C-alpha cells in the first residue's frame, strides 16, 4: 500500500515535467532538450532559495521563473538566430550545467535541515507518503486547470495552431516566432517547477539530476497517449498526467522484480524507442500479414 501511494506521489511530482515535455514535443512539435538543463535549474534555484531562508512556495515560484527564462533563451536561439530547435535546446542545456553549478556553488546541495513544502504539509499531521501525494495532487490540479484555461484562450489556441500548421497561423496574422518562444517559456517553467518539487522531496538538489529527464518526459507522454487517448486537449492533459504515474508504476515494478537501478535509463530509453516506432512496426506488420513484402 505504501509503495502504491509513493508511486502515485512520485508520478504526480514528475507529471509537471511530463506536461512540459508534452507542450513542446506535441503542441509545438519541437523536441526541446532544454528540459535536461531546466529541470536541475529548478532544483538548484529552489534549493538555494530555501537555504537562503525563503518560503518553499516562493522557492517553487522562483524555480518556475528561472525555468521560463531558460525557455526564452532556447526560443531566442531557434527563432531569432534560426538555430535548429534541437541544437538550440542542446546549447541551452549545456550552458545551464555551468549556470546551475554557479547557482548552487557546488555539485550537490542537501536540504535536510530546511523546511520544504513537504515538511510544512507534514506538520499538518499526514504521514510521509500521503503528504507527497496530497501536495503533488494539489499542485498538478492547479497546473492542469491553468493549462486547460490558457490553451483554450485566443492566445493559447494560437500557440497550438503554430505547432500544428505554421503556414496557416501566419496567414491568419500571428507571429509564429512569438508563439514558439511563449510555448518554450511555459514548458520550461513547468519543468523547472517539477525539478523544484523533486529536489524538495528527495532532500537535495544535484547538478546531475537532469540526465535523462527528456526521455522520462517522453515516456510519460507516450504511455499516457497510448493508454488514455488524445481526443481533445483536455483529454491529452489528463493522459499525460496519468502517463507519468503509470511510468513510475512500471519503474517500481521492474525494480521490485530485481532490475539493477543503474539499468533504469537504458530500460527507459528502449521503452521510448519502442513506443515511438510502434506506428511504423504496426504498419509493417499489417503489410506483412497481407503478404506484401516491402
Amino acid at each position, binding site marked *: 500500500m505504501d509503495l502504491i501511494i509513493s508511486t502515485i506521489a512520485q508520478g504526480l511530482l514528475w507529471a509537471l515535467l511530463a506536461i512540459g515535455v508534452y507542450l513542446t514535443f506535441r503542441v509545438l512539435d519541437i523536441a526541446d532538450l532544454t528540459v535536461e538543463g531546466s529541470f536541475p535549474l529548478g532544483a538548484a534555484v529552489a534549493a538555494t532559495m530555501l537555504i537562503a531562508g525563503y518560503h518553499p512556495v516562493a522557492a517553487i515560484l522562483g524555480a518556475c521563473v528561472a525555468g521560463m527564462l531558460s525557455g526564452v533563451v532556447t526560443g531566442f536561439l531557434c527563432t531569432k538566430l534560426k538555430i535548429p530547435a534541437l541544437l538550440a535546446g542542446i546549447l541551452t542545456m549545456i550552458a545551464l550545467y555551468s549556470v546551475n553549478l554557479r547557482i548552487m556553488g557546488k555539485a550537490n546541495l542537501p536540504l535536510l535541515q530546511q523546511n520544504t513544502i513537504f515538511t510544512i504539509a507534514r506538520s499538518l499531521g499526514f504521514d510521509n507518503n500521503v503528504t507527497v501525494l496530497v501536495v503533488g495532487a494539489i499542485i498538478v490540479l492547479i497546473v492542469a486547470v491553468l493549462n486547460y484555461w490558457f490553451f483554450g*484562450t*485566443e492566445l493559447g489556441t494560437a500557440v497550438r495552431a503554430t505547432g500544428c*500548421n505554421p503556414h*496557416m497561423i501566419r*496567414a*491568419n*496574422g500571428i*507571429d509564429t516566432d512569438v508563439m514558439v518562444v511563449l510555448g518554450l517559456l511555459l514548458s520550461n517553467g513547468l519543468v523547472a517547477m517539477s525539478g523544484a518539487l523533486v529536489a524538495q522531496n528527495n532532500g537535495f538538489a544535484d547538478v546531475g539530476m537532469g540526465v535523462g529527464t527528456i526521455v522520462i518526459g517522453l515516456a510519460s507522454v507516450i504511455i499516457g497517449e497510448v493508454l488514455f487517448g488524445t481526443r481533445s486537449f483536455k483529454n491529452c492533459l489528463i493522459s499525460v498526467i496519468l502517463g507519468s504515474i503509470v511510468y513510475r508504476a512500471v519503474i517500481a515494478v521492474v525494480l521490485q522484480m530485481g532490475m539493477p537501478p543503474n539499468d533504469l535509463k537504458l530500460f527507459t530509453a528502449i521503452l521510448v524507442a519502442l513506443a515511438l516506432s510502434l506506428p511504423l512496426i504496426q504498419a509493417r506488420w499489417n503489410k506483412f500479414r497481407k503478404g506484401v513484402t516491402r
Partner: protein
Amino acid sequence: MLTIEHISKTFNPNTITEKIALRNVSLHLAPGDFVTVIGGNGAGKSTLMNSIAGTYPVDEGKIEIAGTDITKWPEHKRAKFIGRVFQDPMMGTAANMQIEENLAIAARRGKTPTLRWSSTTKDREHYRELLAGLHLGLEDRMQSKVGLLSGGQRQALTLLMATMAEPKLLLLDEHTAALDPKTAEKVLALTQSIVAKQHLTTLMITHNMRDALKYGNRLIMMFEGKILFDVPAEKKKDLQVKDLLEMFEKAAGSELVSDSLLLS
C-alpha cells in the same frame, strides 16, 4: 486596392541555381476586381502571389494595399489585409484542431490574440450559420478535428476562413488544383459566390484556361517572370481558349505555345 510597382525577385542570386522569377512586374487592381492569372510552370505566378503575401521579401519595387505600403511588412502582419487559400488543402487549416477553433482563429485574423476564451456561444452561432452556407453539413461537426475532413471540405473551409474577416485582398493559389474535377467545380462555384457577395478584390491563379475565362472580370497571363498580357473585362467576355493561345503566341513571339503551357 492593390498596387504593385516594378517588383523583381531572383532566387539564389549569383549561384548556379539562380532563377529570375519576377522581372519588373507592375499591376493595379481596382476594388472588386476578380483577376485570374494563368501561365506555364515557372512563369512567376506563385512568386507574384507569395511576394504579395509576404512569404519572402521582393528584391525591388513597392507593394501597396488600400494605400498602405506593405513592402517591408512581415508575412503575419500583412495577413491583416490578405485572405489566402493555398494549393495544398493541408496548408490552410490546422488539422489537429477543431473546426470551431480554426474558425475562431480565422475570425480574428490580423488582431492580437488576447486571454479571452477562444469562442463564445455567440461566436459559435455565427460560425454555425457560416458553415451552413457551405452546404457540406459541417455545421453539425464543429467539434470535429479538421484532419478528418476531405480535401474538398478542407478547401471550402479554408475559403470560408480566408474571407470571414473581410480581407482587402483575397489570394487564391491554384486552390482547386489538388481536387478532383467535380469537387474543384464546387469549390470554384463557392469561390464565385463568396467573392460576389462580399465584393472582394481577388487574385486567382489557375492552371485551367477554361476556369480562367469562366471566372473573374479580368485575366492576366504571365510568362518568364513578366505579365505578358492583361485582358480587361469587356474583352474577356468573348474570349475563347484558342484566342488565348493565339494571343500568347503573338505576345511571346515564338512557337512556344507549347504543350507545356497547355498541359501544365
